[in-house]
């Protein structure tokens, strides 16, 4: 009898602690995970938490300055919509960054200048290095 009481107590404490940890961290440390088209629809809503957006790097409006560590580019929705979004980023430019690749940008959308200010730019790569072999 005494044992099962202990077990239940331990279980309850455990669930509470994990739950508490989870919710506090979740509240403060989560961001929206979006496609370009979704950001364009309602940027203000998502700015509250910040967001992470996936897109394909377009050849237009691309400017790189290694010395100033400045990168400006445009990304296109990868889920089929025609929406595009301008992104600026200050920081070390990833080696694998180039036109045509998929990137994940994290940051906030500046609704006045219609530009996404990225705090980080992640290029999707290593094992995803499967190009189609074409006959030349």
């Amino acid at each position: 009898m005494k044992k099962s009481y202990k077990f239940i107590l331990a279980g309850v404490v455990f669930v509470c602690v994990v739950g508490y940890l989870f919710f506090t961290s979740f509240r403060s440390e989560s961001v929206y995970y979006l496609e370009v088209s979704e950001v364009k629809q309602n940027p203000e809503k998502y700015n509250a938490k910040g967001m992470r957006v996936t897109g394909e790097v377009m050849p237009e409006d691309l400017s790189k300055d290694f010395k100033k560590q400045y990168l400006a580019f445009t990304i296109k929705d990868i889920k089929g919509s025609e929406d595009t979004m301008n992104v600026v980023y200050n920081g070390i430019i990833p080696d694998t960054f180039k036109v045509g690749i998929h990137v994940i940008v994290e940051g906030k959308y500046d609704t006045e200048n219609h530009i996404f200010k990225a705090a980080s730019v992640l290029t999707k790569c290593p094992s995803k290095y499967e190009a189609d072999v074409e006959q030349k």
Partner: protein
Amino acid sequence: MGQLGNLFQILGLFAGFAAFGMYAYAVATQSKENAKLADWFMLGQTAAASLASCVLVYALATGYFKMEYVAQYTDLKLPFVYKISGWWAGQAGSLLFWGWLVTVFAAIEIFRTKNYDTKYRSAVLATSALTSTFFLILTIFVTNPFHELDFFPPDGLGMNPLLQNPGMLYHPPTLFLGYVGFTITVGHALAALMSRDTSAAWAADTRKWTMITWVFLTIGIVLGGEWAYVELGWGGYWAWDPVENASLLPWLTSTALLHSAFMYERKGRLKIWTHMLALLSFELCLFGTYITRSGVLDSVHTFSKSPLGYFFLFFIVLTTAIFVRYLMPMMQNLADKDDVKFNFFSRDGLFFLSNWLFLGLTIVILVGTMMPVLSGMVMSDKITVGIPYYNKVSAPFFMLLLLAGGLAPLMSFGGTENRNELIRKLMPSTIAMVLAMVYLAATGKGHPLPMVLTGFTTFSLVTIITRIVSSVKAGGVSVLTSNRRFFGGMIVHIGVVMVAYGVIASSFYNLQKDVVVAPGEQFEFAGYDLKVGDISFRQMQNYVSAYAPVSVYKGDKKVLTLAPERRFYEKNEEAFAEVAINSKLTGDLYLILSSYSKTENYVGIQAVYQPFITWIWIGCVVMVLGGLYGISGRTKRDA
């Protein structure tokens, strides 16, 4: 050549079906003859999968670009070792590699369990046959490495430069060995359930398998971190990326499994836990593959989207259902006897508690990883969590695990010793803990979280030492070799403590600086003066390197020269940074050539100082050696 490889695959598939069917039949009828026939089919599958793998490796080594896979991952100029590593560099090849490993492990089990009960061993081997056949189905029908193009390209596309690192030779194979090994453990767990055997025989029998698997998983994970550290050039080794998490999850559950199985064997306790942890470790290995190969999550590692994920999901559900089907009727028999006195302040209690901690940690990391998918199900917007989430939620778990790992060796089973005795034994550790924290506070490193973590780590270290010293005092040095299981465990814990120090120091006390200077200028960083030289170039086998020699001065004395590079590979337009690292036990000086221009005459350097990071790698080696020591020789009862 592709047809030949595929033919072997198909032969392997049929042999696998036959082996599985025969084993299943042998489980039902206990027929020795059937089991023997099944053994032959299983060995046939091993042979077929081995031959298929030989064909693939041969094609990779000789540059047979007509096979699409070979053309995708290699080219003529690729150094030979990396051509071979193409076997596991891509989707299709790595699945063949995985399936092949399962067949090899099964073949080992066929001989090792020769004299075991027919029903039991047939169930073990049926599990392996099912798994290996599943992988062959994937490599034949979903993503076939032997697929041939209708033309012969003159050259391949080459391997991603980031994969051209010695890490590529060791990291994937060790990780896969870690993933595959649980097939055997879970097979035994299932076999015991099917035989309605509640004894600890299966746990004792798989101890070495599980430990070796765990060792490979540990090496695989740490090598992955080390690789990211030296190759990816952002100065870190762990980013809580879905793929990294996917490898950590089975590590956490299998660490719990090792502890649980110990309790099962010695005390007849935590039986259901042990079964469930064996299942979870197996399924989480597959689950990791599901999330990385299905495209459900965005990760820097993910493979291209394919229906592969659904096959994995199906297989996970199927195998879990089978296992649970046999576990349910045995629950009553496996449950802990209620009359056994249970005390949280005993070694048993801490083992039990640590199971919960490992499971809790697994859950919060799993939920975090799957957050985009889970939130998409219940909300209109997808939500994701980043590095701060993981750091925040995992820290308390790690803290308590360190504490439990520190307390347990000084406690007895059942917690029968008197409290004063225990307090006396814990005095040195408590003093050391306080001293470590005071030291950090006094040297201006008084951030609460790393301070508490360091305190607990130190506590853990000193209890382990106290325990070893008192054992040696009581029983002489010979106890260290006679009770290898216990002291092997202690060595693993020392390794964990080293890793913990490395992680705490490098996460909380690292330094970072970005500079752009003209060649010849110098800047101050982490107590050093760094003088940046002019850019030079050199031609290597398949790339051109641009490097900046940086002279490192301590005071007026030049201590060394580091040369961070950017490499231009022939098949890639963009340059890849190659970092320069000077490792010392007290910390690493890590330099990245972030940018340069000959015409504008500047060099951009990112400098990182990672204190104590080497201890992560050393700790890993110690953990591995401890694990191997624990299973070496004959096992004796714990003192």
